[in-house]
């Protein structure tokens, strides 16, 4: 196996594992804000109860995201040193901005948010949580900016100042707002919100099936299900479609690979599912005639460029990205169906609460949304190949030449074992938190006694309640 491939497998594996967690933090964070707002607006203690329950889970997920995220920042230097040299001026500054603006905000307020149950009133807790979620969203913004620059680079100039060719920044504005940034940002953020909603939905459905915490479960479902459904519909009709159009405009050979279009032509069909055959350069499966042409150019006569328009050296691995892309699309459609059906059954005399088969599907929805976000990223990243920076730097020229194959193999083995253990323990702990269920609701006096203005909070001394754990 080539060293380049080992580097790619290691990066792909570690970033895929990392990417399980940030979408859950982003999406769950949105719902925590909803719970927090409701706790402030109404006197019902169930909102604070829900907020504290999900905060514990948030803390677990967040720490996993931090631990695995640090790996990613190091790996640009350890495994992709030539890439780092080449783009450090641009890519590095976006990562540094992420550190200053996003991580510091998250890290600063996370402690307040997690300790909030015993230390902060509803308003202050909501403020701390909003800051953490804002930090997470900034983080997503900067990292998507950085990744979008790799997809559609601009605002740079190539010079050789004695260390080989490097990309230097010529316009910061162009670097951060590349043409793919807007569509990719909304597509990713909406996907992350859907992941968060599906996490809450799946726990709510599980409680309903097990007849535990039923009132709280129904409340969770009433918040998460409609939001999930609206987002799913918008994702398919607006944000996902925008993203596809953007790829068609700026990365036509990527579109050709993910749609499995080998021959340029008009009235190009869209494949719903099927397979591509690289040897015959054909795509078979369920196809809707002319649909791809219509989607790309609003008319059946639109010409769609096939892979044959591009040098074979520049082709992505169509048989892989075709599958990851279609997996994502079909899951997206399934989410509309699951959400829509759930909403209808709820509206129809609350029949949702007794439809066990649908509740079981909802329990599994967190796995499906995770699979969808992962396959979406695989499509974006594998579809960019053979380039690490689109049409600027090839992946084969980007890895660290001074790291031996044996070293990468050793580190890859280390990550495989480490992450397997970590993931196993994570699942066990997540399950324990879910099985333990929401804590008892705080009494009104308890909530009243907590400081809810900054002045009071900073004068407040730790309330004594001696350790019982």
């Amino acid at each position, binding site marked *: 196996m080539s060293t380049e491939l080992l580097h790619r497998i290691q990066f792909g594996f570690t970033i895929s594992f990392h990417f399980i967690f940030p979408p859950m933090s982003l999406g769950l964070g949105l719902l925590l804000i909803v719970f927090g707002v409701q706790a402030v607006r109404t006197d019902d203690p169930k909102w604070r109860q829900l907020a504290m329950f999900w905060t514990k889970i948030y803390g677990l997920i967040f720490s996993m995201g931090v631990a695995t995220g640090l790996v990613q920042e190091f790996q640009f230097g350890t495994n992709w040193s030539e890439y780092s040299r080449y783009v450090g001026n641009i890519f590095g500054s976006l990562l540094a901005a992420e550190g200053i603006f996003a991580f510091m905000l998250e890290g*600063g307020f996370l402690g307040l948010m997690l300790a909030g149950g015993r230390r902060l009133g509803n308003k202050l807790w909501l403020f701390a949580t909003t800051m953490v979620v804002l930090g997470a969203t900034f983080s997503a913004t900067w990292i998507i900016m950085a990744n979008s620059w790799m997809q559609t680079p601009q605002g740079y100039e190539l010079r050789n100042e004695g260390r080989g060719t490097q990309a230097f920044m010529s316009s910061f504005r162009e670097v951060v707002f590349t043409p793919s940034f807007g569509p990719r940002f909304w597509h990713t953020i909406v996907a992350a919100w859907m992941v968060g909603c599906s996490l809450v939905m799946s726990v709510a459905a599980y409680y309903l099936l097990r007849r535990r915490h039923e009132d709280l479960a129904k409340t969770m479902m009433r918040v998460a299900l409609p939001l999930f459904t609206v987002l799913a519909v918008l994702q398919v009709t607006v944000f996902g479609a925008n993203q596809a159009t953007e790829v068609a405009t700026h990365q036509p050979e990527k579109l050709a690979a993910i749609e499995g279009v080998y021959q340029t032509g008009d009235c190009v069909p869209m494949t719903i599912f099927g397979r591509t055959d690289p040897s015959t350069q054909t795509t078979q499966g369920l196809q809707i005639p002319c649909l791809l042409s219509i989607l790309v150019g609003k008319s059946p006569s639109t010409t769609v460029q096939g892979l044959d328009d591009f040098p074979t050296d520049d082709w992505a691995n169509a048989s892989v990205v075709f599958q990851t892309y279609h997996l994502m699309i079909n899951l997206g459609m399934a989410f509309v169906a699951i959400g829509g059906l759930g909403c209808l059954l709820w509206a129809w005399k609350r029949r949702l609460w007794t439809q066990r088969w649908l509740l079981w599907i909802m329990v599994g929805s967190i796995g499906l949304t995770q699979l969808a976000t992962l396959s979406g990223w695989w499509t974006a990243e594998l579809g960019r190949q053979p380039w690490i920076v689109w049409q600027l730097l090839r992946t084969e020229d980007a890895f660290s030449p001074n790291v031996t194959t044996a070293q990468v193999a050793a580190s890859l083995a280390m990550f495989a074992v480490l992450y397997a253990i970590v993931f196993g323990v994570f699942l066990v702990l997540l399950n324990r938190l879910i099985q333990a269920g929401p804590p008892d609701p705080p009494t009104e006096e308890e909530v009243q006694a907590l400081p809810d203005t900054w002045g009071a909070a900073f004068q407040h001394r730790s309330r004594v309640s001696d350790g019982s754990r």
Partner: protein
Amino acid sequence: MNLETLWFVLYVGIIAGYVILDGFDLGVGILSPFVARTDRDHRMLLNAIGPVWDGNEVWLVLGGGALFAAFPVVYASLFSGFYLAMMLVLLVLILRTIAIEFRSHRESPRWRATWDWFFFASSLGITLLLGVALGNVIRGIPLDSSGQVTLKLVDLLNPYSLAVGVTAVAMLGLHGGIFLTLKVDGELRGRIERLVPRLMVAFFVLMTVLVVWTLLLRTEVTATYRDRVWIAAFPVLALVSTVVAWRLIRAGRFLPAFGASALTIALLMATVAAGMYPVMLPSSIDSSYDLTVHNSASAPETLTVMTVIAVIGIPFVLLYTAGVYYFFRGRVVLDDHGY
């Protein structure tokens, strides 16, 4: 001051911030098996660092990002050159996060004892590894003319670098010990207060040896200090600050002692940086291959943007870091939230 030098100073500042802040929580981990006897003791230690350790670790992320952005060539050469060592750093960083987070999830003594051991070993491991890495950077690494480093893991384990690692352990153990005297109570506090002066002696002896060793080993550093005499203010002030810390500890005034310990760390980082400047990575093959702030910095366009980002961002960072520390001031009270 030109932009490159400004970013060198900022970078050293971020690293100093990391060592001061994450340093005390690493120190808590290093001391844990020697001071904590009961489950309650271990929980006191974890809750003492609980609300802040995550934020402290972010300074390392920031350090990585700032190096990548401002000195991409150094970032690329250093991280790929120290490949396996960096992978070990990642391993222990993850194990430490997991140990802190997972410990409190189960009551079983065996579960907790296992994670307590991981917390200790990973805190020690991070400190040693980063210390050894710094030692190698001071000593020089085999950078070739194209800026590539080819090293084996065992090459890093030379006596000088190991000495830097051991000194770092003593320094952070001391720093974490002083921090704990402010945070815990009872017998646990008594044990820590008795340990701190001994750590101080160990740190002082090790640091003195290390300074002499550095001056003998790195004649370039010695020459730099001869040429720019004013930078000798950093080591002199570090010595003064150490003596002040010692007197404050003897007087039982631990809050100002913690401040003095933090200042000592910052001054020691400045001592190293000033002695090496403008070199960031010295080459042991040929000094003309050295990576300096001038030949490996990003272009002025990038550094200007970065400076704007830093000017906007850093005041906020300092403001809410200070706010969070103030909010969580005072001794730890255990309840069923937290660790």
